[in-house]
Every structure is written in C-alpha cells, then in structure tokens.
C-alpha cells in the first residue's frame, strides 16, 4: 500500500471527526508550545545578558575562591580572606594590569540618610578609588571617586541613591551603623552606575579600603597583612585580558600567599567577563532545560490522549477494518494506515505547537524587551518528538487494528 494512499484514507478519518481530532491534538500542542516558549525565553534572556555584557565589555576579571558543595552540583563561592596585600602588589606589578582592586564587605547593619534608615538591603564594601570613573568598571553618574585614604568619603551605587525617598545626591551625609554598634558618618562624593549587563547589582556603599578595611591575616612568611576575600583586576585593554588572566592564574598556582592560605578543597578562579557570560548562560540553559523537561511531561499526557482516541477509533472501525481485509488489505497495510493516522495527529500537534510556542514566546519576549531568539534545535526536536509521540501512541492501537479478525468484524451487525 502506497504511503500517499494511507495519508489520503487516514486524513479522511481524521477530518471525519474534526472536534475529536482537534481535542486529541491539544495535549501535544500544549506540551510542545510550552517547551518552545521556555526555550525562547531562556535563549532570549541569555542573549539579552550576553548582548549587554558584550556592549559594555570591560577588560575586567574577578579573582574568587570556589568550592564544590558536598551534596548537589554546581559551584559555591567562598568568602575567605586569603588574598593578601603581597598578592595584590604582585599582580599590580604584572604587565598589562591597570589596577587591582581588593574588595571586602564590611559588616554594616543599617544605613541612614537624614530621617530615613535602611536595614539589611544595603551592602558596604571596602575598595579602591580606581574602580569608579568614566574609563573604569563603574562609570560615575555624578560627583567623583573618593580619595584613597579619606575616612569620611564614600561612593554609593545608583541603587543606594534611589533607595531613599529623598534621593541621595552628591555632598549628602550618610551614617553607617556596623555590627559592633559603631556608627560612622560619611559624605557621598560620587554616585556610580554599577549595573552589570543591564542587571542591577545589590545596592552598595563603597568606602576606601585603606581607611576602613582592618581584617588581617598571618602570611606564610610570618608577617601580618591585610587580606581580602576577592580581588578585581582590570587589564589595560581587552587584548591584555587573556594573557593577564593566564599570568594571574599561574601566579596563584605557584607562589601566591592565597595558594597556601586557602583550604585544600577550595580552588581559586580568575573569571573574565566572558567567563561570567558563559556561567550565566550555563545556569540559564540548565534552568531552561529543567523547566522544559517539566513542560515535556504534558507531552506524555498528550500522547496518552492520542493513544486513547486511536484505541476508540479502532474499536469503532472494526467493521471497516474487516471490510478492508476482505478486499485484500494485509496486516501491514492496516498497521500502516492506523500508525500514519496517529503520526498525522502528532505532526499536527507539533506544527501547531511550534507555531503557538514561537508566537507566545515572541509576545513574551517583546513585552520584556528582550531580543527574539529562535531555538532552532528545539524546534527540530519538537517536530521529531511530535512525530515520535504519534508513532509511540499509535503502535498499540495499530497492532490491535491489524489483529482484527475479519470474520468476526463482518459478522457484527
């Protein structure tokens, strides 16, 4: 029996029950559409972040300590102060390094501006003045950066400035209360734009490291030095990033203080902006696949729906099957006929599902202002899955149809 002939006859059967066929494919449509929507959203989100990061790409890298959690997968950051002043100086001395900004968070509990106070939401970080400025990682929206050792100057992020109903402007005084109960009053000398890749960062008050950071550690050489939980290194140009990263990585593998100070199971990582992008993309990918997987469960439901209707259809058409056998249909003709019918149902579900998924995804993405992404390989997968669902759910009904005894079928009145 020719495939074309089966398509013609199968299509007749499908269109003979329009409502039923439509309802049958709805399950597959919903399953495939939701998978596609999530893939569009995930892809668009990544594209959005990556695009923004690429736009304002800075020759900056972060030196961080990581560990693998004992249970589960992924990577956790460790906030251990292991990067000493000697390390900072050693890296500063390397070719192609613009600055090394040590940073360490200070244990602040409350931030006040005039009558208003914020608790908990604001971080306070000790760092160096070079990070802020038009040529730096964080451009200034207003004012200037603090002087290296001033003890009453601060740069605040735009998020902090707008946190208060009475926005913080340059020259305003802020009081910071620390965990030990001490309160310091500083003047906001600059407001920095600290959004990274279009994503707002935590509202942070930045203070000069020299006048505020006191955490020290005994170095392997027996000296007492300040030590930081992470470093930010800026290369002189984008071209310097890779060689610098290599040099720094090697340094941490050979004679850095941090190498000896860190826990054995911890590792030191030097992350460029590209690495960060990859990491974000990786996490988003995992999440998308996970959510997509959940959506795929509805495909299983959809295929059960098709199988169910096909079984009903076989029962209803027992007599027709008997007739076809009487006029010469072989078992495999009947299998082909019914299998094709459920494949057509699955394929319709896939086509409509992909179209609906792209449409809905496009709508959502445009509302969020993200770039549209067509998840081509997922569209291909969805199409294959649709046909696969058709085959799987059609196998048993088709086998049942082929096993119909024509004599029994024709005796039925």
């Amino acid at each position, binding site marked *: 029996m020719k495939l074309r*002939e089966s398509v013609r*006859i199968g299509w*007749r059967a499908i269109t003979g029950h329009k409502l039923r066929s439509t309802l049958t494919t709805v399950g597959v449509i919903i399953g495939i559409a939701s998978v596609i929507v999530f893939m569009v959203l995930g892809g668009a989100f990544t594209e959005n972040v990556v695009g923004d990061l690429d736009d304002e790409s800075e020759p900056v890298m972060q030196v961080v300590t990581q560990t693998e959690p004992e249970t589960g997968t992924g990577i956790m950051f460790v906030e251990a102060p292991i990067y000493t002043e000697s390390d900072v100086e050693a890296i500063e001395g390397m070719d192609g390094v613009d600055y090394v900004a040590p940073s360490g968070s200070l244990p602040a509990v409350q931030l006040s501006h005039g009558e208003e106070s914020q608790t908990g939401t604001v971080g306070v970080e000790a760092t160096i003045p070079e990070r802020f400025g038009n040529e730096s990682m964080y451009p200034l929206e207003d004012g200037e950066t603090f002087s290296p050792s001033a003890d009453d100057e601060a740069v605040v992020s735009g998020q902090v400035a707008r946190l208060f109903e009475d926005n913080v402007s340059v020259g305003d005084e802020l009081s910071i209360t620390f965990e030990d109960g001490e309160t310091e009053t500083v003047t906001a000398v600059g407001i920095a734009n600290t959004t990274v890749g279009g994503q707002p960062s935590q509202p942070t008050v930045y203070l000069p490291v020299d006048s505020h950071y006191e955490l020290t550690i005994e170095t392997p050489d027996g000296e007492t030095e300040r030590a930081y939980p992470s470093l930010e290194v800026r290369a002189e140009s984008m071209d310097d990033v890779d060689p610098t990263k290599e040099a720094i990585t090697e340094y941490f593998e050979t004679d850095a203080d941090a190498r000896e100070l860190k826990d054995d199971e911890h590792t030191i990582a030097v992350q460029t902006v590209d690495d960060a992008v990859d990491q974000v993309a990786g996490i988003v990918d995992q999440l998308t696949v996970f959510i997509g997987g959940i959506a795929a469960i509805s495909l299983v439901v959809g295929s059960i729906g098709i199988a169910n209707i096909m079984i009903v259809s076989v029962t209803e058409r027992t007599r*027709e099957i008997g007739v076809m056998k009487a*006029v010469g*249909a072989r*078992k*495999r*003709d009947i299998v082909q006929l019914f299998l094709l019918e459920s494949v057509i149902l699955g394929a319709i579900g896939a086509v409509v599902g992909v179209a609906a998924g792209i449409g809905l995804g496009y709508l959502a993405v445009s509302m969020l202002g993200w770039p549209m992404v067509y998840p081509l390989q997922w569209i291909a997968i969805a199409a294959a899955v649709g046909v696969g669902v058709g085959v799987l759910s059609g196998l048993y009904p088709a086998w049942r149809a082929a096993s119909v005894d024509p004599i029994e079928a*024709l005796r039925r009145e």
Partner: protein
Amino acid sequence: MSTGEPASEGGSPVVARDVRRTYYMGESVDALDGVSLSLPAGSYTAVMGPSGSGKSTLMNLLGCLDTPDEGTVEIGGRSVGDLSGGERARLRGTEIGFVFQTFNLMPRLTAAENVTLPLVFHDGVEAGRHERAETLLSRVGLGDRLDHAPNELSGGQRQRVAIARALANEPTLLLADEPTGNLDTETGNEILAVFDELQAAGRTILMVTHERRVAERADRIVHLIDGELAEIEQLEGKR
C-alpha cells in the same frame, strides 16, 4: 454430489474438498462438517439453508477469509491452507470479490473511492483509477454518482457500489452473502439482474440466500443443513 475437476474454459475452478470448520464456544460446533463442492468457471451457484446451517462459513472459506480445520480449499490449483496470511490477503484482493448483505462500504470514502479500494492494497498504479471506477459504476448504472458518499445513496445504490467494488480486480470468483437481504423486492430484483448480467459476461458466482425465488436465478442450488451438504439441485432450463 458433484466433486472432481469440472471442465473449465478460462479462469481457474474453485474446489472445496471435505471441508470441516469447527468453532469452540464452550462446546464445539461443526459449522461445516465435511463439505465438498466445486465451482466451475462461469457457473452461478446459489447456497440455501436455514439460519446457522453454515452458509456464511462456506463463503468465508471459499473467499480465503478463513481456513478449514480439515479438508482443503483450492483456488487456481493452490491450497489456501498452505498460504501465509499475506498471500491469502493478496488472493482476496486479486481473485475474489465479496458482496455483503449490509453493503459494508467505507463510510468516509466516496463511491468511486470505495470501488477502487481493492486496488489500493494490491495495485500500485494510481493512474486511470478514477476512470476504472467510472466504468465499473456505469456498468451498475451509477455513472453519475461517483463522488457521492455512501450515506448519500439508497440501499440499492449502495449494493451496486459494493458489486462494482467486488469487480474492481476482475476477480475469478464473485461471492455474495444474502446480497438482497436488506433490500425491498423491487430493488433486490434490480441487483439480481446485475448478477444475471455478470454471469452472462462469464463470471463465476456463488450467492448465499434463504429465498427460493432468489436462488432460482442460479444454475443450481446447494442445500446446506446443519453444516452438511444435503443436496445439489440442478435447475431446469439452465445448463
């Protein structure tokens, strides 16, 4: 009883030898109990008998839908019992045409598509199929109903479509199980006239009926009782 090889001109004879078919429904029932019958080429045979006497069972065996538990059925010299399911399907699709009491048309196919249904399974050639349907339907007086669905046709018209379908493969043997059973007398007579024409054109026909009046259109009447062949009645004025 007339067994043995009949003289045949054109087309192969169909022969049943000592055929037994037993059904088990709690206890065993011999639907056919040692029946021998041969259908010479071009013959027109009626099968009569009370309900449950094995008429349909005999027809199914001669039509390759079923195989005997004992004895043999030969079509064109080949024993049906030795054939695979696929080979028997091929035989049904190429050598045999069925006509049923309840027409048994495919409800979602047009008259023309119903007529050419047997070709779908055993003839890859699609070209000229519609013309073939037109010729066959014209022969049964339905040349103007090609694209009608079965439910748009009367009972008599449906049976004509079924006959046209049975002829689609130029079968050696035409089997009809009470073809007029669901029709009024007048329409039934029209259908019987079609069978008369087919016999005149040289077809081999076996027709099951329980009406004497209908059976008398044939050359001879085979009487079945309780699964046994009681008598073969040669009708006068026929050959």
